[in-house]
């Protein structure tokens, strides 16, 4: 077997085992899906606020489409990787992981990707509900844009993965990166469009926020799906998103090397 064939065999094996493992945690996925109440609560609030007239071009139906799409996208891109990594570092399981001849990032990515079928299952209900209740008027019907949406979804997942794996690795450099993770979750909720659509952010700040990477984690895929962007705009932003993804991966690898070095100094 050539080295590439070997790597492929190894990765497929990891996917297979992680998928089998994930099915044992079906219940956890369900609970996690049910926990995402924030978009629904915000939907209720905006609905009440826009009853008498749309705000910045968004009426009750638009908010409904937005928040339901947001639920679906979040299911796909979120992950409890940071908890897992910190648990491993604190519990010492990281030792066995380091003795394996595979880069831990590959293992973590396999773990995350193997969950995708279950995540897709959890993402379907809000989308189906949205289509049944609102019809397809709020969503784009352009096949190219729909294709770009899928690419942007993958890009969002990649960005999130790189950031999460970085935060998890910080657990090797500081005692526990859970607190850092919670800060990140808070900032993410504010700036990615999870809490409020980015169009609702005041004019002065909107320019800056649109450039920040947070937008590309959640809001951008939704914007594509809802047809808020033209083909050209979607393509251009896709470039930015994947550039961010590459950047974050680079940072993640560098942080990992630093974290590993520190681990090798103290042995945990």
């Amino acid at each position, binding site marked *: 077997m050539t080295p590439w064939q070997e790597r492929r065999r190894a990765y497929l*094996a990891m996917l297979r085992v992680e998928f089998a493992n994930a099915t044992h945690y079906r219940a956890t996925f369900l609970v996690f899906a049910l926990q995402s109440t924030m978009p629904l609560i915000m939907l209720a609030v905006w609905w009440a606020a826009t009853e008498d007239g749309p705000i910045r071009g968004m009426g009750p139906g638009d908010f409904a489409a937005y928040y339901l799409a947001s639920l679906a996208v979040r299911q796909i891109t979120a992950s409890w990787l940071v908890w897992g990594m910190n648990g491993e570092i604190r519990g010492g399981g990281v030792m066995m992981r380091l003795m394996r*001849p595979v880069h831990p990032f590959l293992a973590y990515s396999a773990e995350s990707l193997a969950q995708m079928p279950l995540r897709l299952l959890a993402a379907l209900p809000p989308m189906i509900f949205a289509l049944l209740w609102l019809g397809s008027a709020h969503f784009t019907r352009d096949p190219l844009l729909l294709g770009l949406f899928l690419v942007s979804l993958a890009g969002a997942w990649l960005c999130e993965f790189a950031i999460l794996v970085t935060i998890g690795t910080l657990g090797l450099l500081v005692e526990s990166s859970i607190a850092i993770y919670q800060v990140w979750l808070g900032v993410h909720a504010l700036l990615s469009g999870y809490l409020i659509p980015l169009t609702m952010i005041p004019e002065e700040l909107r320019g800056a926020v649109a450039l920040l990477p947070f937008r590309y984690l959640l809001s951008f895929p939704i914007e594509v799906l809802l047809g808020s962007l033209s083909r050209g705009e979607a393509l251009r932003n896709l470039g930015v998103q994947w550039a961010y993804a590459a950047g974050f991966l680079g940072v993640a690898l560098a942080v990992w090397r630093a974290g590993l070095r520190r681990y090798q100094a*103290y042995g945990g």
Partner: protein
Amino acid sequence: MPAPAGAPAIEVAHLVKHYEVHHREAGLLASLRSAFSRKRESVPAVSDLSFQIAPGERVGFLGPNGAGKTTTLKILSGLLYPTSGRVRVHGYDPQHREAGFLKSVSLVMGQRHQLYWDLPPVETFALNAALYGVPEDTFRETLGELVELLSLQGVVEKPTRQLSLGERMKCELVCALLHRPRLMFLDEPTIGLDVEMQVIVRTFIQQYNERFGATVMLTSHHMDDVTALCSRVIVIDHGRIQYDGDLGALVRRVCPAKQLVLKLAQPVPRERLAARAEVASLTEAQATLRVPQEALRTVIPQLLAELPILDLSVEDPPLEQVLRELFAGASPLGGPAA
């Protein structure tokens, strides 16, 4: 950078390892202060270790807690990097964790697990086979041999959580050896196991070593692990090698007294025994005496003549005692190398 044939499996030259430790004091005020600034201290764990291990050897690392055994093991397996000194395992520098190195060794730690809890062990086995690049047919062959050696027929297809502790441990061993490593690091492999399981694990490691020629490096608190498996021991204390050589020679050198175990027909008062030799332990049915090697010829006939002895045996002193005397400085060895 794999090593040429005939080269030592492990080469360690002047290995030094210091840890930086944070000073932690008890008390609320100290804890609060420590949140803002910590005092750092450099603690030496290992100082100037040098030794070589040939392929196929079975070597035991002995030493009191905190002596540096686990540190050395972790440096050799690449989990720690040395402060200074040269370390080569199969020609690789372990801290770089190259794939070739990782595939040639295996680390078994008593309390750590590789197996997925909810899945049958075979799933983890197949995963490891893929990760380590073991061809399918070799994998089947090795798996068959290991299952046979450990009597695991029918066990490996059940989910790990349904297995007993002993079965789980055996499966962990299989998992660790599927890729036929040339070198096994064993850190406290029998910890938490009952006596029967300890024997099984020891026998298995011995058989594996004999069948596949793998080098074995073992640290353990169970002296029986070392006595049963290792012909060579390296004794570490305060981060330095106190002894490196044959186990039997170590025992003889440190503790030249033999143990005399007497089975008594009737209880014997301590003073009668103490008159002849040092009494290590005494019950109604058994007495253990310590007698210098040279004195055995005279003491034994006297004891046999005077006391109601049913049975008598001469044994080497237990390793624990040897080590205790070694570390207490009772028997200076005059130099690290054997």
